[in-house]
């Protein structure tokens, strides 16, 4: 077992998930509750990684972050090294690639919250930030859990973007998916099986968590004792 690759993969998935949640919560709130005409375009762009082949996304990111573009040169100057073929580059690629897996469940969760609760909070003076923090996030708990797990898993099993943008540098960009690919390419099916089983176990455990539906999460609408809806 390549423990170094396992540690790197988990680090990449955890970091990507944390960054994604920071981006996805405000973005999802805007998509679910906003009325801007740019919303549709934002939704389409956010969902693009769902349909775009990972290699295409990886290729464009490689070009964008490379020395041929002004953006890539600026990043290079700022960091002192190119983002492509580095762990930081993988994080950037993973965040973009997994964005819809975080944004879409959270948007659906926010949109499902009873509008009268949001109206009540606005009337009581809640700013957009307070509305998100005190009403939307607590009431969309299950959607946030789903987004967290899906983002983590999607990053864990990422291959195309990692290979295009990061290559195969041990300790920097070699993740479990790359290790698995190398093992299969080297006809080491016993090792490949171990790696694949490990990834499979991660995925099954995480999906069990998603489908366990903790009763304390998602309470966007309730029924009172006498059966009438309270919110």
């Amino acid at each position, binding site marked *: 077992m390549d423990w170094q690759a396992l540690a790197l993969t988990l680090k990449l998935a955890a970091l990507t998930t944390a960054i994604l949640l920071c981006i996805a919560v405000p973005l999802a709130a805007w998509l679910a509750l906003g009325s801007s005409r740019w919303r549709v375009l934002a939704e389409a762009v956010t969902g693009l990684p769902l349909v775009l082949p990972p290699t295409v996304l990886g290729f464009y990111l490689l070009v964008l972050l490379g020395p041929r573009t002004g953006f890539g040169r600026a990043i290079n100057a700022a960091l002192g090294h190119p983002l492509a073929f580095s762990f930081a580059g993988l994080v950037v690629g993973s965040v973009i690639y997994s964005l819809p897996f975080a944004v879409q469940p959270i948007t659906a969760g926010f949109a499902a919250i009873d509008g*009268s*609760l949001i*109206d*009540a909070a*606005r*009337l009581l003076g809640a*700013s957009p930030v307070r509305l998100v923090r005190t009403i939307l996030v607590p*009431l969309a708990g299950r959607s946030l859990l789903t987004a967290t797990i899906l983002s983590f898993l999607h990053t864990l099993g990422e291959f195309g973007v990692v290979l295009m943008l990061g290559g195969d540098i041990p300790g920097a960009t070699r993740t479990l998916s790359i290790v698995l690919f190398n093992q299969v390419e080297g006809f080491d099916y016993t090792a490949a099986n171990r790696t694949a089983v490990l990834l499979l176990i991660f995925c099954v455990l995480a999906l069990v968590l998603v489908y366990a539906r903790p009763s304390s999460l998602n309470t966007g*609408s*309730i029924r009172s004792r006498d059966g009438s809806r309270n919110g």
Partner: protein
Amino acid sequence: MVELALQAQRGSFQLDIECILAAPWTVVFGPSGAGKSTLLRLIAGLNRMLQHDAGRIAIHGQPVTDSATGLHLRPGKRSTGLVAQQSALFPHLRVVDNVAYGLTDLTREVRQQRVSEMLELVGAASLANRSPRALSGGEAQRVALARALAPMPRLLLLDEPLSALDAETRDQVLTRLQSWLGEQKIQTILVTHDAADALATQAEVVVLREGKLAALGPAAEVLAAERKRLQERLGAS
């Protein structure tokens, strides 16, 4: 005082109202679909004026909506409380935390005192530590009322807020509420289907029909005219 001059199109429905509501209590009557709730939501700022709407709303002399200048003061800045039939209590917060939600500017002690006062006012002091899930419809409506009153709004909008209460409890709450609102000088606009509410509160009455202002005046006068109109219609049919 609420000044209204509104021409708002909502699908096939046209709200066309121009009036000044100056009485401490105003009761808005009208059949379903007459525009009563839309009117309250426009006053509260929960509904925005759309592209082809025209009009102006001022609360106690302060413009809060003006289509000519594009003004739309956000709901929390209008010092307006709204309680609807659906109590909309935050299900993840206890009753006390629901009532305290709009009191962020107060110190902890003052906030606690205000919450207790409001729960006492609506006869819900014993519910303070309950979850909204554990409340009956009537209890939830009373807590929602306490929550809307806690920030001491200048204007209180009530959209059939006590419909889940039995007649006796509703009369008690309404009487206590009216006296307290009078002391605090909080103007109230109440949407109801119950003529007794209007008569009991000595309110000024607004009758809305198909989005238009059909009558405005003292409760006894307007209700008598409405009764006569209905009798004539029933006689004619």
